């Protein structure tokens, strides 16, 4: 798993590692649905690469000896190795290569912020455009899946230990997969009636088809993982009961962030004001876009305002368009450069006609007599000195109010930690934001209890939740079976964050 494995393909004849070739093909462009058409459907926007495109793109990779790209990936996918396999046309092998370190390549290839991770550090990016690592990752995962036959890796013999996993988001799925392979008997407890966490209830169909998530969960089930849905841990069972009454040897907590933040301004409880979580859950998990065939309704809105500038805000805005809105305005406190959303999503949103109202923030939501939203009063902002996050601080400009018409307002300004588990388990310590405190490898303050993902880090990314999950799986393996791993030793040397 460490970098030592990578020199293998060094001598591959397919990729001469001489000085950069004079004629390098340009970075591949993925075909996608044209904006005017895609805003009318919920189908995935980019189509994926063809095998020819994939091989051509793979040929751009320099097969660096010290691949910088790998350093940029939070789970150290062996990027040059899998790309070399694509170049040779060995697509299924390439998918298996990725899966050694990343169990959800079809997901990550689609939703990772590659431009700040693997592709940001790709050597080619210095002079040309970086290799389209995300596209390639998506390509081979799709190829394997659509081929219908996903190889099950070899499983270790059952070791007699039982582990409970709370939450089926990316962190929980990773821990489940890793431990099942190591011979553990794994049970996932999920609060909802479907598995996948944010991947099913948050990220919309047009960005991540739910069929992919279902396949991944099916794969875990084939590995022998049991999933118990509709189990809200902390309510129907406590962590303590899992450890004592139910006889689990360890518990992993991956319950995500999931407590929506509001702005605490007047009018926030009017009808037609949603948290992003509610809006997306109605539309994605409950499939309100198929109402009335599916019974859960959602307010569609014709003039929609989305507050926020992250991936979640983009997803809400683009969903609103697809549900039939005439005009969708995104209101964000800072400037465009500070938007935390992935570049590709911002670009897609703009193409689709989302209006960006930057350097502005709502101060009041105004309703009619029936309690429905009709206007939002906003204030203009300017940027001041950089704050703790390193971004320039937004400062309201006095007496610079303006109003926007709206019949639907979606608040996508982030989530706080869900308190259900800490509330019902006093032994688990949390920090002042309610996030569970762990050591560098995911051990909580309670013995035999581990945690990772958004509940530990605050809202982050799919791949970082998976990375945290992977470490926690190793920590569990170490604590229960005494098997150490270089990853643990490396992680333990890291200084503890903000304490």
């Amino acid at each position, binding site marked *: 798993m460490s970098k030592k494995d990578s020199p293998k393909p060094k001598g591959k004849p397919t990729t001469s590692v001489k000085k950069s070739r004079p004629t390098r093909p340009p970075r591949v462009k993925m075909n996608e649905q044209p904006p005017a058409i895609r805003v009318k459907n919920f189908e995935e926007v980019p189509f994926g690469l063809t095998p020819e495109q994939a091989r051509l793109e793979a040929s751009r990779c320099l097969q660096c000896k010290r691949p910088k790209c790998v350093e940029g990936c939070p789970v150290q996918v062996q990027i040059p190795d899998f790309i070399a396999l694509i170049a040779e046309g060995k697509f299924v092998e390439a998918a298996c290569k990725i899966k050694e370190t990343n169990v959800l390549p079809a997901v990550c290839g689609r939703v990772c912020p590659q431009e700040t991770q693997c592709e940001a550090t790709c050597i080619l990016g210095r002079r040309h455009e970086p290799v389209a690592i995300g596209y390639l990752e998506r390509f081979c995962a799709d190829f394997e899946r659509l081929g219908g036959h996903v190889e099950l890796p070899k499983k270790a013999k059952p070791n007699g230990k039982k582990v409970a996993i709370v939450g089926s988001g990316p962190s929980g799925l990773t821990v489940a997969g890793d431990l099942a392979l190591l011979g553990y008997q794994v049970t996932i407890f999920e609060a909802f009636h479907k598995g996948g966490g944010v991947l099913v209830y948050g990220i919309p169909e047009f960005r991540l088809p739910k069929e992919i998530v279902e396949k991944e969960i099916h794969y875990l089930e084939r590995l022998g993982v049991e999933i118990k849905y509709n189990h*809200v841990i902390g309510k129907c069972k406590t962590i303590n009961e899992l450890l004592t009454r139910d006889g689990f040897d360890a518990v992993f907590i991956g319950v995500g962030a999931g407590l929506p933040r509001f702005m605490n301004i007047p009018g926030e409880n009017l009808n037609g004001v949603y948290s992003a979580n509610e809006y997306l859950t109605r539309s994605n998990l409950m499939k309100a876009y198929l109402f009335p065939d599916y019974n859960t309704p959602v307010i569609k809105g014709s003039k929609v305002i989305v507050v926020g500038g992250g991936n979640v805000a983009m997803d809400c805005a683009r969903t609103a368009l697809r549900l039939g809105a005439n005009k969708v305005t995104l209101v964000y406190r800072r400037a465009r450069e500070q938007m935390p959303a992935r570049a590709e999503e911002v670009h897609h949103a703009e193409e689709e006609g989302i209006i960006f109202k930057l350097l502005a923030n709502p101060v009041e939501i105004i309703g009619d007599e*029936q309690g429905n939203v009709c206007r939002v009063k906003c204030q203009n902002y300017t940027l001041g000195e950089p704050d703790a996050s390193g971004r320039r601080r937004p400062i309201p400009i006095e007496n610079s109010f303006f109003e926007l018409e709206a019949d639907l307002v979606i608040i996508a300004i982030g989530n706080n930690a869900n308190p259900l588990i800490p509330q019902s388990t006093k032994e688990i310590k949390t920090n002042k934001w309610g996030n569970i405190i762990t050591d560098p490898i995911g051990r909580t303050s309670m013995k035999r209890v581990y945690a990772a993902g958004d509940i530990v880090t605050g809202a982050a990314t799919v791949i970082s939740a998976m990375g945290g999950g992977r470490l926690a799986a190793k920590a569990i393996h170490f604590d229960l079976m005494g098997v150490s791993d270089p990853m643990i030793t490396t992680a333990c040397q890291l200084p503890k964050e903000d304490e």
Partner: protein
Amino acid sequence: MYEIVEKREEVPNIHRLIIREPNVAKKAKPGQFVILMPDEKGERVPMSIVETKKDTFTIFMLELGITTGKIANMHPGEKLYAVAGPLGQPAEIEYYGNVLLGGGCYGIGAIYPLAKALKAKGNRIVTIIEARSKYLIYLEEKLRIVSDEFYIATSDGSRGTNGHVQTVLDRLIKNGHRFDHAKFIGCTYMMMNCSNITAPYRIPTRVALNTIMLDGSGMCGCCRVSVGGKTKFACVDGPEFDGHQVDWAELMKRKAAYQEAEMISYQTSPHICRALIENYFGESDE
């Protein structure tokens, strides 16, 4: 799991269901609820837990719209698609002294576990239930057993007092009854009116709010209500709140948010519910 063990229409449109789910049965405390889904396409509907027995629990369900209609059309032996719970905070059960309980509609059932638990704590229980007409009264015998005084109100006057819970309550207080605590479950109007009556007498009053819910675990904020000027999530902070602090006007507006959509989904539903369309808005009409 999730199997409907027994189902009976107690009175028109109110069904008593016994459902098998050991997690709920073992853990439920008075005042908690479950979330049910009849099938993959249905909504997630909250229902109060009324009784538990070994690995089953009982609910009383008012057949109202599409999702409750679907459940009402299921048969014993069939399985619900999802049952999650117990959810919410248990009701406050203490020794108070003289306790007044008011229930209407599905709340006649939902108030029963509170009556039982409060009685067991040594409280003196005065129960008032309301219905539109005498043929809509159910659970009377069981409620009488745990009540020291028991009153009925019907809006058509066919039994007991002609009027509502608040009519009887008002009379009792004016006749010199002293109450140390009150709890109400039922339609929002009833809970609001009763809270308004107890407020001037400073009777501590708890109401079990039935906001619209989605996940039921604090994740979406759909169930938010203003209580004492602060936003609370009914599914995790409640459902029981101080009736004198609830912003009733806001709550009623929020409950009506989907009336149009509900009508559409009800009318386009392939199955035919027996509930009459008027019944549909009956809950909040009065």
